[in-house]
């Protein structure tokens, strides 16, 4: 039981192909994050699931039932929009009550549900206000309350946090996680922010150019990215990658040479996360020499931007008050276990 995207394609009338045979299946109760850069098709995927867009190919299954041709109101899904889409002529109370009124629920029942939901989202004080009198964060809460008040099985959220300021975004993120835990509904959350994906998701679906690139738990997406694209998309700063040749367990790219056991010979893209690069003495056996370019303080860490010939990379290391001067030589070690290898042409993971 769960939700299935069965080969969903979407070509818009203007010829833009947003989705190319998307296959994705997940269980009810999960918190699924659709992650990708703009134009990856993540929003389209969410809208197809909602029924706001009709796919040009494929089927959507909910609990085994084909809902592809079902209008949104029969799909049992609530939705939160990026711009909140509150009804500006109705009070906050009536906004939240609206899905219940449409479903002709009894007045006392409506009142109870609205107040419960408002309490859960801490907007009980604003029920009499008009949406124009709310701050962004409050409007966002009202939108979430409206989407969830009628207890839909699935809650869809299309970049719900991107219009909030940074602090509020962190706060709402935690709130959403709490809501998911308390309501035990299926959440489908669209974002381009990998941090939101990492913190919220039970599983992350990474999309690129309308195709699913990887679908895994957040830690797996981070630790074993399925492709060079995912590797470079996840993590801030991004994973360092080098395009080079591998021969007999040794990787070479320009002046860089390091041991990379267990990877087949040939052209390869080698990647390593900035925090997994080790700073070592010049005497260390497998040290690679770089020169410091600039350093940035990201407390409690420090980012050191280094270069060697045409290659450059970022090292993330705990800040121990050591200063890295421009031009200063820095010897680095790439622990073999921390290396990721990707196909030089397709970008697919090799190991």
């Amino acid at each position, binding site marked *: 039981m769960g939700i299935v995207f069965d080969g969903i394609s979407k070509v818009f009338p203007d010829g833009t192909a947003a989705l190319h045979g998307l296959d994705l299946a997940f269980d009810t109760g999960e918190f699924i994050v659709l992650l990708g850069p703009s134009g990856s098709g993540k929003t389209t995927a969410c809208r197809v699931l909602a029924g706001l867009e009709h796919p040009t190919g494929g089927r959507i299954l909910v609990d085994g039932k084909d809902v592809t041709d079902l209008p949104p*109101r029969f799909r049992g*899904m609530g939705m939160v929009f990026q711009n909140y889409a509150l*009804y500006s002529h109705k009070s906050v109370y009536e906004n939240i009550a609206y899905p219940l009124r*449409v479903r002709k629920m009894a007045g006392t029942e409506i009142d109870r549900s609205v107040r419960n939901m408002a309490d859960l989202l801490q907007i009980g004080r604003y029920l009499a206000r008009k949406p124009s009198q709310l701050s962004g964060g409050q409007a966002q809460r009202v939108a979430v309350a409206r989407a969830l008040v009628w207890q839909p099985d699935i809650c869809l959220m299309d970049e719900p946090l991107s219009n909030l300021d940074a602090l509020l975004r962190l706060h709402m993120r935690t709130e959403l996680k709490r809501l998911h835990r308390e309501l035990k509904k299926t959440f489908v959350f669209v974002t381009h922010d990998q941090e939101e994906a990492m913190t919220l998701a039970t599983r992350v679906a990474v999309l690129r150019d309308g195709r699913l690139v990887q679908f895994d738990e957040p830690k797996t997406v981070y630790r074993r990215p399925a492709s060079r694209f995912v590797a470079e998309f996840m993590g801030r700063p991004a994973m360092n990658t080098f395009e080079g040749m591998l021969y007999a367990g040794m990787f070479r790219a320009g002046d860089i040479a390091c041991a990379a056991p267990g990877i087949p010979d040939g052209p390869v893209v080698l990647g390593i996360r900035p925090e997994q690069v080790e700073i070592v003495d010049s005497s260390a056996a497998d040290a690679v020499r770089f020169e410091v370019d600039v350093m940035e303080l990201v407390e409690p860490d420090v980012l050191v931007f280094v270069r060697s010939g045409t290659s450059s990379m970022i090292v993330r290391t705990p800040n121990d008050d050591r200063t890295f001067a421009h031009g200063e030589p820095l010897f680095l070690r790439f622990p073999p276990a921390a290396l990721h290898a990707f196909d030089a042409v397709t970008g697919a993971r090799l190991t």
Partner: protein
Amino acid sequence: MIDRAASRPWTAFAWAVLLVAVVVALTPYLWIVLASFKTRVDLFSSAPKWLFSPTFANYPAVFIGKEYWPLAINSLIISLSSTALCILIGAPAAYVFARADFPGKEDLFFFFLTTRMAPPISIAVPLFLFFTSLGLIDTIYAVVIAHTSFNLSLVVWMMRGFFAEIPKEIDEAAVMDGRSRLGAFVFIIAPLAAPGIAATAVLCFILSWNEFLYAFILVAFEGRPLTVGIPGLVTPHGTLWGQVAAVAVVATLPILIFTFLVQRQLVRGLTFGAVKG
């Protein structure tokens, strides 16, 4: 400060132009209002009389004596019905133009406007023949339909802008909340566009209320509106200017009132939403 000093002559000039425009526009109206209270003697005095002892005889003479009051009712029925029809047909059409995408959309939209580009008189005769063959000639229905037909394009053009201003996520939110597409339009979008709908309706009402040509051609006795009644006072024995003025004053009153009430929305509607605030 310098800017303001430099622009002062221009401001004065602008005011002068406005003043001239207002005088030119209001003088005839003032003349009509005064004339409606004048006796025949005062009306035909060789020098215009600004001070005179007013008579209130013209109003009862024409509205009761000549039984013109049903014409006001006719005007009201025609204007209200054609406005209602225009909004009922035009608002959904405008909504579709604001939201949907279909081949030839902009061409069709422009075609609606072209229906207002021909001089009204050029289709007067075809319209007469058309309504004659329908058997609707000299009925109030003919006027209602004629007015609806020429106001419809205006409604579609004005309302599209009002609907386009409403984010389409609002429709989608309503659909997700359990409405059908039609339900979203009727219960959420139309109420949100209510100020625009009201402004459009007032404009329709004014245009229909003021209309003379089609009404004059399509009805002679039954269902005559006020505008058509006025020429009836031009008799072979002379024109009853006092009574003409009395009818004209009554005929312009609703327009005055409505225009003052919704002038802001009217301007916004006519500029297709360009004026904000």
